[in-house]
């Protein structure tokens, strides 16, 4: 079903309902030139959407619009809309960024567990929300760690420091931390760029398993990764969305010349 509000011509192949939709979104860092220019992008529900493009193209900047991370720093400005479930505009000044972040989870480029125990890391989001019932937290921590395929490795040492885990385990812990609060969308910012190939494979497999539960948006610098895990791919260049379509189509028959050049390795 083609999204009504977005008339981008290369979105003809979108066959899923949109979970989140950016409409004419622009973003400015501290009053300077637009880092994101008029992007319209409908992210399909319970699918993995990859954002690719050469470095500096604005893919991470775009990703961080979806949970208002830019609000943490002064003078940043959004224009346009990001609609969740076609109703709530996530970047409206009337919506508290904290409300947004409670509904949209995020996994960062480098694993960033808190200097706390494994258990407390996963429980953090729940505690933030004021949950104090031990039984509820216990159950949720176990469930999230299981979903993150980490439970078997850590179930006997939940009280160990998170820093004692390997890099790949730390990243899966961060995914568990994001899952614990039942987010409707999870943002991944180059989640495997700091990991070795085996840990990368684990995280990728995990993401594929999570697909039937949650919508995911992934920034990746690796075209192979986008091809391996994503259902849809958006190609960005110089702050603009060049093309968005099913991943198979983007990699086999891109409509735009720029996309073809990038996929073909001619720049970037």
């Amino acid at each position, binding site marked *: 079903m083609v999204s009504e509000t977005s008339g981008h011509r290369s979105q003809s192949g979108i066959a899923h309902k949109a979970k989140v939709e950016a409409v004419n979104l622009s973003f400015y860092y501290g009053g300077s030139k637009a880092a994101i220019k008029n992007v319209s992008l409908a992210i399909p529900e319970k699918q993995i959407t990859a954002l690719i493009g050469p470095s500096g193209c604005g893919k991470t900047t775009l990703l961080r619009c979806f949970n208002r991370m830019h609000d943490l720093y*002064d003078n940043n400005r959004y224009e346009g809309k990001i609609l969740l479930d076609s109703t709530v505009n996530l970047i409206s000044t009337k919506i508290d960024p904290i409300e947004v972040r409670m509904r949209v989870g995020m996994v960062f480029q480098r694993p960033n567990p*808190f200097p706390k125990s494994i258990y407390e890391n996963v429980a953090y989001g729940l505690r933030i929300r004021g949950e104090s019932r031990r039984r509820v937290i216990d159950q949720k921590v176990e469930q999230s760690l299981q979903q993150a395929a980490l439970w078997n490795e850590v179930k006997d040492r939940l009280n160990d420091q998170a820093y004692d885990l390997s890099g790949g385990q730390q990243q899966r812990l961060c995914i568990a931390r994001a899952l614990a609060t039942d987010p409707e969308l999870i943002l991944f910012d180059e989640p495997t760029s700091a990991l070795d190939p085996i840990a990368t494979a684990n995280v990728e497999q995990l993401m594929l398993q999570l697909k039937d539960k949650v919508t995911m948006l992934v920034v990746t610098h690796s075209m192979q990764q986008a091809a391996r895990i994503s259902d849809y791919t958006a190609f960005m260049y110089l702050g603009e969305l060049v093309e968005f379509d099913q991943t198979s189509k983007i990699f086999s028959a891109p409509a735009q010349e720029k996309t073809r050049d990038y996929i073909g390795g001619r720049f970037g």
Partner: protein
Amino acid sequence: MNAQPSPPTSDLEYRWGRNFQEKAIEAMLFLAAFLAVAVTASIMVILVTESVGLFQTVSIVEFLTGTEWAPMFEPPTYGILPLVCGTLMTSLIALIVAIPMGTLSAMYLSEFASLRAREWIKPSLEILAGIPTVVYGYFALLFVTPLLQKILPSLPGFNMLSPGIVMGIMIIPLVASISEDAMRSVPRELREGSYAAGATRFQTALKVVFPAAISGISSSYILSVSRAVGETMIVAIAAGLQPIITFNPLEPAATITAFIVQVSLGDLPHGSTAYQTIFAAGLVLALMTLVFNIFGHFLSKRYRENY
């Protein structure tokens, strides 16, 4: 430039000369650095040798456990506990002011304040740390005490409360600046991880940043203890000079430092008992601060190595 290679002999000579110069300079620089060790050593040597005479009149146990300090009276008594008590009481009052206020200020500066607000507030707070302590003493005696007397009419002109509070205000920048440094050196990713989970600034500050910076923050606390214990002029001017054991902050008391000042103001012949007592008191003071300083330094080193 001339491409003529210099003859081997002169090159050797030149190299020898340069090596000699290098070594001589290094030796001089080393001596300058080693002076720090020499100064510490001379402090300990002087404190011990100048006070050792006192311990022929009074045993060390009596000195450390006696509850009466009257070295100028006849018969003299040399129990340092009243001075230690006065020192700890005024320091305690100062810390009750400085630690909460310094920590709150640091949290505000590091997690809430905008960049511009921080650039104004920090140097303004630093001014507090630069004011001469004799000026603080004047302020405690002639401004804060009269002010407190309006609320507590029975407060005597000399008391521990007023200099304690003023000392606390003086120490706020010390706590605030070290704690803020520690909190700001917590990596941005940790903060963003917390915000991305939907935490407010307060929750992030309290549950993620504060625990991660705890060793730096506690080192600021320990250094401020050492600062309060060694502070002299404020208490010498405004706390009174009676060496009595009291835990009532509304009463006057003498601290170790105030006692040293008081004795120094009088006639102080070299080697007299009075002369020896201030070195003995100074020795106790130096040892107290030494322990705090080394412990605080150890903690602050640890937080820097954490990330």
